[in-house]
């Protein structure tokens, strides 16, 4: 069932409109409250000594000189922390065979990547703590380093955790139909090897935590820049051995997260442990340099792919062999097998074919751990699929748009189950493709491309269809044993003056969740949006929920908010009916007034109703329910995930003498179901595209052979910047999910999912006259020049 909301057809409707973000002026004026803005009495600062070696035995730690530094209070080793904080092993039951080793908040005995915390210095200020680090003496005995994922499983490669028996963390093979038979009978088979560069999410606000422990109450209060406060509460309680109810996680303003802040980090756990040991508030704010070596990385994949097509250009089979290196530990508690697993789930996702074989091999190595980053696995699966699709179209001499038209799952084919066993409720690939082609004026661009080629200007057009997994059910983590809520809740309260407060379990990371919630609640209750206050990010205050991940805020949190708002409206009408001597069904709440439903005539402002309920309850009939608070929870149950779809196109110009790529324009048509706030959705798409373009062209965590990160600052790690970004045109098709009244699916990762594939295909389209091709991201000038044969290949 889906609510019938044609956006502008009734007064006081907000769903479907661009409503300004209530927190925007505050943040723009620098009036936000990030963790680092909070100062507590008796607060101290911690800084971490990080392993300079990718793999080393930790010898003697001599703290004498550090302790003599003015302002330094204490030095902690791994063993000191282990006494109060138990180690964790990040495995999930549904990822069969996944293995990892116990990981400590501060390394005990052995450091396994360059950047792993080895000791902590606590001081009166961060600067003093760093003075302490500068003179802390730590002895190391370097051990052999496993850097290269291709050889991680070779018998002669040393084992990172000997007790695991090998360096294999996880392997999954999925097979559907008869891929071998289908390949054998295909008219053409294309194949290629793709690399997606290891990169990371660079948040404006680095990871930050301020932990305060009150011994008298055995209460831990943690101010944390996080996506998932309730998950963190559970983890802190478990590993610090405290009752969950004695841990409170408060999450104020967050300066971006992108998946980086949904994981459990050793340094943050150590900070909480130190707070418990010292009984003082302890602050840790990662600096930019340590962020690069301690924030999770992602997307370090090598993927071999083969695609078979018949003579009519229909895909008959797809084969994928994915290899990924995840660092020395699977990351807690979501695990580092999810990304490879997603590659298996998502490859070929937009297309109608039956024969599929996919394998992912997840290996350990001595590099920064990898885990879920915005659009987990999607950009990889999309690049491989769309790269192969373009190759196949070329192989049979078909225009890439026509090829997609023949192969995308038909818009009337739903419900549909993909070759990877993903179930789709309703997608709109063909509508989206048609809209894209029209929007970009595809034929005119092709004509211009041909004309410019004559003049020695090489432009390319790249297309990428994609699916995006959103609104996850417990199938994502819960069934594997993780205490991560797929359900979310919202409590809506009417106060005496007729204003509304809504408390939600989803969180605000700077992406506009609170704006979305405010407009949904305003419409649900029937009040002006300015009268709604949203509260998120406090485990002791909001309903229990999952927070921000997998594009679930609007689809799950929004539906809970809508249902809670509607429930409160019903409660209000019941009281209003008694007061106005009318049947509640004949009344409505619009724009903060109780009105007559049939005529819209105003009967009573909510402020008056509030006054009577709260202060003159004596005038209401005894026994009349007067619950001016309503709570609703929502969880998806018909489908494990609400898939969305879309298609992107990129227009680039390649300077074939220098290998430089200019992004001229980018288009995206996307279907996230109900668009609640067009501006917010468009900005999610645009920001997502920019991060995708970053992975395609710029961002790369480059390591030396001995496991040293060579790009650990903003000069060497290139994030995409405004000057290089293209104009973007964003449009929507709306196929609401029928599972919820709101009909919203997620939109947070679509941009990132498709952008790298679109750019790759565009570059290769530009290079086609030279029979050159690039498949290793990022597509640097050097790699493009090497593909053009102008310079020799160099490995990175």
């Amino acid at each position, binding site marked *: 069932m889906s609510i019938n909301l044609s956006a502008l057809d009734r007064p006081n409707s907000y769903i479907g409109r661009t409503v300004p973000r209530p927190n925007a002026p505050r943040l723009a004026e620098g009036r936000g409250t990030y963790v680092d803005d909070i100062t507590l009495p008796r607060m101290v600062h911690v800084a971490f000594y990080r392993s300079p070696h990718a793999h080393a035995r930790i010898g003697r730690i001599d703290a004498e000189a550090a302790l003599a530094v003015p302002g330094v209070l204490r030095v902690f080793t791994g063993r000191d922390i282990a006494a109060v904080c138990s180690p964790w092993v990040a495995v999930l039951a549904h990822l069969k065979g996944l293995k990892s080793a116990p990981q400590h908040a501060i390394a005990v005995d052995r450091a396994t990547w360059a950047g792993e915390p080895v000791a902590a210095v606590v001081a009166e200020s961060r600067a003093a703590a760093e003075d302490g680090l500068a003179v802390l003496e730590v002895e190391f005995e370097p051990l052999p380093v496993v850097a290269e994922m291709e050889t991680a499983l070779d018998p002669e490669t040393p084992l990172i955790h000997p007790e695991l028996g090998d360096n294999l963390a996880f392997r999954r093979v999925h097979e559907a139909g008869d891929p071998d038979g289908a390949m054998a009978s295909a008219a053409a088979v294309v194949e290629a090897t793709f690399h997606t560069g290891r990169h990371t999410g660079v948040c404006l606000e680095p990871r930050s935590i301020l932990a305060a422990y009150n011994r008298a109450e055995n209460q831990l209060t943690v101010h944390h820049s996080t996506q998932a406060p309730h998950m963190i509460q559970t983890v802190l309680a478990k590993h610090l051995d405290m009752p969950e109810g004695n841990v409170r996680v408060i999450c104020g303003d967050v300066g971006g997260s992108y998946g980086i802040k949904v994981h459990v980090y050793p340094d943050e756990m150590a900070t909480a442990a130190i707070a418990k040991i010292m009984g003082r508030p302890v602050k840790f704010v990662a600096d930019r340099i340590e962020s690069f070596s301690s924030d999770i990385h992602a997307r370090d994949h090598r993927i071999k792919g083969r695609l078979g097509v018949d003579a009519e250009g229909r895909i008959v089979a797809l084969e994928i062999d994915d290899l990924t290196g995840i660092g020395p530990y699977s990351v807690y508690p979501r695990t580092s097998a999810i990304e490879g697993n997603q590659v298996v789930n998502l490859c070929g996702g937009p297309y109608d074919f039956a024969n599929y074989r996919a394998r992912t091999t997840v290996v350990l190595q001595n590099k920064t751990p990898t885990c879920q980053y915005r659009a987990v696995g999607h950009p990889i699966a999309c690049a491989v699929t769309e790269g192969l699709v373009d190759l196949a179209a070329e192989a049979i001499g078909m225009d890439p748009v026509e090829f997609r038209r023949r192969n995308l799952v038909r818009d009337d084919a739903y419900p549909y189950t993909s070759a990877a066993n993903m179930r789709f409720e309703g997608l709109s690939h063909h509508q989206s493709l048609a809209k894209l082609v029209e929007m970009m004026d595809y034929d005119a661009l092709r004509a211009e491309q041909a004309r410019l080629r004559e003049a020695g200007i090489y432009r390319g057009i790249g297309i990428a269809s994609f699916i995006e997994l959103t609104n996850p059910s417990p199938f994502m983590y819960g069934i594997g044993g993780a205490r991560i809520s797929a359900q979310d809740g919202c409590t809506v309260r009417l106060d005496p003056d007729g204003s509304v407060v809504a408390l939600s379990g989803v969180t605000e990371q700077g992406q506009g969740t609170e704006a979305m919630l405010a407009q949904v609640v305003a419409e649900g209750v029937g009040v002006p949006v300015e009268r709604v206050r949203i509260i998120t990010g406090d485990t002791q205050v909001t309903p229990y929920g999952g927070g921000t991940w997998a594009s679930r805020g609007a689809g799950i949190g929004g539906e809970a908010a809508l249902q809670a708002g509607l429930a409160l409206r019903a409660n209000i009408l019941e009281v209003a009916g008694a007061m106005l001597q009318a049947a509640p069904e004949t009344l409505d709440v619009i724009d903060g007034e109780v009105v007559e439903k049939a005529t819209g005539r105003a009967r009573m402002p909510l402020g008056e109703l509030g006054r009577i309920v709260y202060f003159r309850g004596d005038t209401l009939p005894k026994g009349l329910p007067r619950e001016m608070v309503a709570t609703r929870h929502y969880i998806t149950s018909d489908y494990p995930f609400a898939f969305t779809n879309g298609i992107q196109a990129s227009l680039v110009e390649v300077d074939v003498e220098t290998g*430089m790529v200019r992004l001229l324009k980018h288009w995206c048509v996307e279907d996230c179901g109900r668009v609640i706030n067009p501006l917010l959705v468009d900005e999610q798409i645009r920001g997502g595209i920019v991060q995708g373009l970053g992975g395609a062209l710029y961002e790369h965590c*480059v390591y030396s052979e001995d496991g040293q990160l060579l790009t650990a600052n903003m000069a060497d790690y290139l994030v995409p910047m405004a000057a290089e970004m293209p104009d973007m045109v964003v449009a929507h098709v709306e196929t609401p999910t029928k599972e919820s009244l709101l009909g919203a699916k997620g939109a947070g990762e679509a941009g990132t999912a498709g952008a790298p594939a679109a750019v790759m295909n565009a570059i290769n389209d530009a290079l086609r006259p030279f029979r050159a091709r690039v498949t290793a991201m990022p597509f640097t*000038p050097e790699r493009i020049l090497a593909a053009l044969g102008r310079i020799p290949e*160099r490995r990175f």
Partner: protein
Amino acid sequence: MKGASLAYARANDVSHALELWRRAGPDARLLAGGQSLLAGINLRLNEIPGLIDISRIGELRGVADLGDRLRIGALTRHADLQADPLVAAHAPAFAQAAPLIAHAAIRTRGTIGGSLAYADPAAELPACVLALDAEIVLRAEAGERRVAAENFFLGLFETALRPFEMIVAVEVPKIGPNRRHAVLELARRSGDYAMAGLVLAADVAGGRLHDVRLSYFSMGPAPVLARGAMAALDSDEGVEAACAALGTDLDPVADLQGGPEMKRHLAGVLLHRAVAGLLGHSPVSGGNHGRG
């Protein structure tokens, strides 16, 4: 990271600065625009006991016309070079180079003296003074001396500056009527240090170049004069011959952006473009970034 605490003193004039420096010891540093120095301090790259802030010394800032030369004070900002009419008229390479340096915020603080003293091999201004045959004017308590740009850059972050000696100005000959400058570079993002860059200065007459000076940046441990290519262009052997000469002129080292082969290749592409530009076949100057 937070820098270690250090001493700080502000100098009123050049002799005051030199006196403060002597008293603080050779490891103390002059603070000009701070755009390279402060980043290094915050990374705790070296132990620096103190800073002598020269940024308010008025006599070190600005451009003066000395007749046949311009004198550019050491504290002249990159943004000043970009906007100064004397520079645009008489030493246009500086005006062309300045907008290619970093971003506006950095250009309004960074100084030419700081850039030359720091001697980053990827920096634009050292290559400019080399191609323009400028003199660097240095002062110590013992007095002043002048060093030709060709003798100033000794290696990676290494110059002819002696202990307790500072740059006070750069003096650069004014261009004659036929003289043209071109500054070209390639960077992956606008504002980044270049993967490869050149400064070309030559007289243009009779459809060819004369008296060519050609320097490269981001091509080795220090900015380099490409003498072989200069000779080839001077004797009108053509751009291809000049590019071939780059093979011996340049000895680039690999960095994160590319190996030596790529750098050599780009050096040749840039030379083709710069020569074509001076001869009026295409735009003369600019950064080539992936700008959309």
